[in-house]
């Protein structure tokens, strides 16, 4: 009987295989957790998306190069979203004829409530539902409101995880218009 096939060598080989499998599993688990907690994009290229709008059209982020884009995630059940809704519309009215585009993304909501919200707050900039929450996943949304400011080159310049005032939003947009 050769030394390689002794019961002791077989046992140690099994132990090594089991140990390697456990290590592989722990490694994959760690990689998954790290990916999940990678965090939202706060700089670099903005993840592209196409949004179906409530009014029937579609809008694609990558088609808006050369414009400053304000992407706002919101929901009708979210009180802080209501707090900033009128400010967002006010800033949109101020900048809509310049190189600025606002996009509202309705996240985890019902369509009827979302439409009622848009009507109640008189929101006129393009808005649509995040179907399947795919855009929210790209931007790693964990709640609402979350607002991303994207420059003319399509890079994220700021990620704001709270309701914003009109002045604060203008403070983000103005410098980017001059670039």
């Amino acid at each position, binding site marked *: 009987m050769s030394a390689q096939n002794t019961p002791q060598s077989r046992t140690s080989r099994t132990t090594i295989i089991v140990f390697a499998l456990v290590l592989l599993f722990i490694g*994959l688990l760690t990689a*998954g957790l790290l990916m999940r907690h990678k965090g939202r994009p706060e700089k670099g290229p903005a993840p592209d998306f196409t949004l179906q709008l409530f009014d029937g059209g579609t809008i694609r982020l990558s088609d808006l190069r050369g414009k400053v884009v304000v992407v706002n995630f919101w929901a009708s059940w979210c009180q802080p979203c209501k707090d900033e809704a009128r400010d967002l519309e006010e800033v949109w009215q101020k900048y809509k004829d310049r190189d600025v585009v606002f996009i509202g993304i309705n996240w*985890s909501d019902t369509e*009827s409530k979302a439409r009622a919200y848009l009507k109640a707050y008189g929101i006129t900039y393009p808005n649509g539902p995040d179907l*399947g929450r*795919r855009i929210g996943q790209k931007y790693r949304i964990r709640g609402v409101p979350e607002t991303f400011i994207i420059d003319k080159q399509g890079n994220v310049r700021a990620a704001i995880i709270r309701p914003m005032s009109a002045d604060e939003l203008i403070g983000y947009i103005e410098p980017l218009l001059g670039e």
Partner: protein
Amino acid sequence: MMLLPKPRSHRFLTLLMLALILSSIATPLVTTVLAGTPTPSEVEAVARTLYCPLCVGERLDACEIPLCMDMKKEIAKQLAEGKTPEEIRQYFVAQYGPIVLGEPPKKGFNWLAWIIPFVALLGAGGYVFLRIRQWSRGAPQAETVTSERTIREEETDELLDEYARQVERELSQWE
């Protein structure tokens, strides 16, 4: 000023228009009434198969947050429209993703959640099978060892006997 009597064809057209308008209003109402207002238990039955998209593993029927309440109203509305529970489930999957079904989406890293239990089961089953086979093979080996030991004992006995005989022979020479 003299009023001319309306021609018959005009009256017929007016009646026809009126009938069309009334039917267009009445049809959705009749459909709703025919489909029936769903009972709370019918809504609950669908809600029991769905999960809150914002909470962690909380079933829709037990969830009280505003979104869940809106989702339950949507279920009631769609049941009243005659949609099947499966159609309603598919609607919510399209709206919020597969998270509403309470299972991880079958893509990327999530595949591990589907594969690992089966791999672990196969691995454990295979290990148990191999151990059992090893044990069952271990039994004849023991017999062989026993028989080898018996042979060696017999040989030793023979040698001892031979030695004893030689001692007896030599002792008899001395006597």
